[in-house]
């Protein structure tokens, strides 16, 4: 039984972020990949949409510059023939402050011939921003129009 492309990609991604080893991940990304990490790009420049392998590798380098993955747990995972979706719990360390950051992340990936062609990632970004700030953001409660 052939290993699903997600597992190879996941291993290579974590190796790139934690060990700054980018060769393996580069070999697993399609030249025309579409990539989107949704979130506030003014606070986190590595978020946002990218197209093409070089742009995606640059994002992965930026992630490696900013974070260390301490631990991740897959809470839910679905594997299709050339696709995968998973919900993960990440424990990260922000390298500039050594601050721990805990994130819940949803990941939707598509592959062709073993290479990543599409990646969409959703994060509970309000929680991410509060953790990065180290304090709560005070907002009015939306009791009638939210």
């Amino acid at each position, binding site marked *: 039984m052939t290993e699903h492309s997600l597992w190879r990609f996941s291993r290579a991604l974590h190796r790139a972020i934690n060990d700054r080893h980018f060769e393996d991940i580069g070999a697993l990304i399609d030249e025309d990949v579409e990539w989107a990490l*949704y*979130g*506030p790009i*003014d*606070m986190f420049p590595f978020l946002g949409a990218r197209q093409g392998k070089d742009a995606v590798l640059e994002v992965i380098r930026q992630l490696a510059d900013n974070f260390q993955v301490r631990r991740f747990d897959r*809470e*839910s*995972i*679905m*594997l*299709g023939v050339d*696709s*995968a*979706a*998973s*919900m993960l719990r990440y424990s990260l360390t922000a390298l500039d402050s050594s601050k721990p950051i805990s994130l*819940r*992340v*949803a990941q*939707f990936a*598509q592959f062709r011939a073993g290479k990543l062609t*599409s990646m*969409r990632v*959703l*994060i*509970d*970004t*309000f*929680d*991410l*921003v509060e953790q990065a*700030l180290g304090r*709560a*953001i*005070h*907002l*009015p*409660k*939306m*009791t*009638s*129009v*939210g």
Partner: protein
Amino acid sequence: MTVETLNRQRVLHLLDAIAGSDLQAALSCCTDNVDFLTHAPIDVLPHMGPCHGKKELGEFWRTVQERYADIRYEVPQIVAEGDTVAAYLRVFFRKRSNDRIIQVDMAVFYTFRNGQVAQIREIIDSFDLVQQVLEREIGPLIVGDRVDGA
């Protein structure tokens, strides 16, 4: 038909029922003790807290429909395996109060039991959602300003 194909169709049927404001049909897709959890700031959006059971989930959906009209879903990606389905959704809501459109991308993970939805877990770009609901940038809050009640 595989169980994956069937469950994928069940999710699309559930989404159609919600978009069509047919909450009875939507709830009939769910087990009696359906469990719903979305990750959003409930101090800002108190109706988005966890729901357990059809009654609470029905109240949540009813609250959403009282505030929004013309709910529309696009499903750019859906993956099913066994009793689980993950859907990447782009959802459009029209605010009844001022006709503004809110567009939210969300990841929804469904777990089925005996052909019914037993668990729903959502992840949303919640920072963007809050800004759209408040209809303002919340960047100034980050530097310490407070926003008056919306």
